[in-house]
């Protein structure tokens, strides 16, 4: 490994440690304190009755603050890893799953921070950051050869479009992760009326806002992808499985947006559509494992 590439790898390692630590901190905060409240009552007949009750409270806020700081670290070092690798390779790092996933790490930490700042719902971190942490574990599990810089196969060398195509998709995936987290919290809040969570209405709004950021980005990603396909292969759309998997995901979020305008669907059913949508997102992301075809990256 050449010096800068190695530096980039260490930056990734630092980022992944920060992200895993952030995930732990947020989970501790999110799960909160479960306390058993025991009450002893003396009854008029002279007996004593003990009743015990599970009681959940928000976890120590300090953990969430730590979590946020570690998330900033994770984002910063992921950014450093991308930029140094970009410099070392001479092209935007998207030539294999290792590089592609670095972009995702940056995107998900960035989007998480944006949404925590906008709404202050720190419990989201207890779901989003473990997803990010899972992603770092996935990156560690990839073939170490991918950490080397290899020349880009010609099809991926398409100038300025590629970074925007990949960037908008990754940002969209990241916001969909936020929407997914909000949908889960929504379902919890709606059922349990949990005091440690914001209102279901607010969580519904968080999810919608996340999709209202992610859906246009995803749309842009699809469009840039087709423009790029036109430059590279001469056709805008080939019905390649990776393309249609993205179309599938896009349509699921289209369904979500319409359910929100329907009485009786908005709320719980919309939240279920979001859970399904995130599964579709993961399917698109890991589509390379299912399909051959034009989007098969080096090493996957």
């Amino acid at each position, binding site marked *: 490994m050449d010096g800068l590439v190695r530096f980039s790898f260490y930056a990734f390692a630092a980022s992944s440690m920060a992200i895993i630590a952030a995930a732990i901190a947020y989970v501790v905060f999110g799960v909160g304190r479960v306390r058993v409240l025991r009450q002893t009552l003396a009854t008029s007949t002279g007996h004593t009755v003990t009743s015990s009750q599970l009681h959940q409270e928000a976890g120590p806020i300090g953990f969430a603050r730590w979590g946020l700081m570690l998330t900033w670290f994770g984002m910063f070092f992921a950014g450093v890893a991308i930029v140094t690798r970009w410099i070392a390779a001479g092209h935007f790092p998207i030539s294999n799953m290792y590089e592609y996933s670095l972009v995702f790490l940056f995107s998900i930490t960035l989007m998480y921070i944006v949404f925590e700042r906008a709404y*202050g719902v720190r419990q989201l971190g207890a779901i989003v950051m473990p997803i990010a942490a899972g992603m770092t574990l996935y990156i560690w599990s990839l073939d170490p050869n991918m950490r080397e810089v290899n020349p880009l196969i*010609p*099809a991926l*060398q*398409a100038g300025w479009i590629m970074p925007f195509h990949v960037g908008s998709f990754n940002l969209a995936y990241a916001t969909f992760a936020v929407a997914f987290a909000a949908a889960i919290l929504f379902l919890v809040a709606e059922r349990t009326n949990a005091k440690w969570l*914001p*209102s279901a*209405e*607010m969580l*519904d*709004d968080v999810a919608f*806002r996340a999709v*209202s*950021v992610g*859906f*246009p980005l995803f*749309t*842009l990603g699809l*469009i840039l992808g087709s423009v790029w396909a*036109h*430059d*590279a292969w*001469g*056709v*805008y*759309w080939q*019905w*390649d*499985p990776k393309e*249609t*998997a993205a*179309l*599938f995901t896009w*349509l*699921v979020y*289209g*369904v979500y947006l*319409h*359910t929100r*305008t*329907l009485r009786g*669907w*908005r709320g719980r059913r919309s939240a279920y559509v979001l859970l399904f949508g995130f599964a579709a997102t993961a399917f698109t992301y890991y589509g390379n494992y*299912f*399909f051959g*075809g034009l989007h098969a990256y080096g090493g996957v």
Partner: protein
Amino acid sequence: MADVSVKTNPKQSRSMLEVAVDKIWRFFTSVRNAVYEIAFLTLLVLIGTLRGSSVPQWIADTIPALQPLVDRWYAWDVWRSSLFAITLAVIAVAIVICTLNRLPGIWTTITNPKVSTSRGFLRGAETNAVYTLTGTHEDILGSIERVLKGKRYRVLTEKVGDETHFYADKNRFSNLGTFPFHIGLILILVGGIVASVYGFRDNEFIIPEGSRRNVGHGTGLSVELNRFRDNWSAVGVPIDYVSDITVYEDGQPVKSGSVRVNGPLSYGNATFYQSSFGIAAHLSIVDSSGNMVFSDAVDLGLFTKRDNPDQPAGVARLPQENAQLVVIGPDSDPFNAPELDTMQLQSGQLWVSLESLGESTDVTGSGGEGVVLTQGQPTRVGDYTVTFEREGRFSVLQVGYNPGIPIFIISVFWVLGGLIITFYFPHRRVRGIISDGPDGTTASIAPLAKRDWSGKREFFTLVEKWNETLGTKPAIRLPANATDYDYLRAHENDAGI
């Protein structure tokens, strides 16, 4: 009986038609049905996508009884199926009808909204603010209006008895945003249809260096290859190859540029891609009376000698002479199957043979009448004198002609623009009544933000500003989830909140 039915039938059938139209109209205007339609399309896309993977096979391996179904799954080309086309068509129709149906209502909201409201609405709203003030309605309205205008609201007022009602909204065009978006989706489909009906693709458009070739298909375009350049790595792998071309339209040069792998050149709806390249021979052919009948490059690449695939071949056509000259070049890889190289041509030599036009595009090179040319030496071939002037190269381009491109580009702007308007400029509305009562003048204000968290948050920021301009704090009815709002949290201990 018959009499009666004859009399009522015309009227009845018209109303039945009306009923039918009404039913269809309602079917297509229902957003609930739209959800089902999009969900069905989503399902089709999933089925088509998985067809490109081993997932169906995995299902059959797990549940062997499903094997026949899985076989049919793999056999079904979803994207070209009529079910898929019909689904898209239904969605397109639904979008158009839904748009037509909603437009008048939305337009009224924009241009002529209802200003007056009722106390019941204000009192029943999830959240509201009631200010108790002194002053004239005009002064109070002025203060309220200043805040709203500062936040880009439009304010409309109406006197109802001795009350002053007002309605304020911002981003009133937001609800129109879904129209360009949905229409843009239809336009993308239209672009795809136009491309597949009127477009074409030519995967082997060959131009020798220095020559010009017609694109054909009624485009009036032709392309000249000015120069071909290639770079090779030390191990003999081509790194880059570039064709410098000029595009002509109706004989006039209209665009020049280079075409490389992944770097196409577009002119209008035509796009030229670099595909591959090969060797071309520049020939001149002079007839017995000394007239030049051919002076151009012949690409040796489309054909090979039939019994030796390493020998490239080509044809020079002489339509006026009703003749063609078959040209075969030297073996390009002498170490591969040397026994096939019966001609033993050296570099700088060509084997040619004269035939009548169109006799056989299948270049056999096995005819006896062949003549070997040596570069620069005029040689008699039949009634002609043929000279192998020099060796050059040809470039193979792909030509894509897609008249759907302008439609696609326009629809992209519509789709993205529509999304931005819809999502980032949401319509916000506030209603209020200023009235006189025993305790003074009250201004009751409420947002139209049912189940709209952000809408209520915006209202609270307005309240904060009104508190400043009106110089007092209102009685606020808090939404059930009041603690979610930073503003309220910060003001929890203040009087009135």
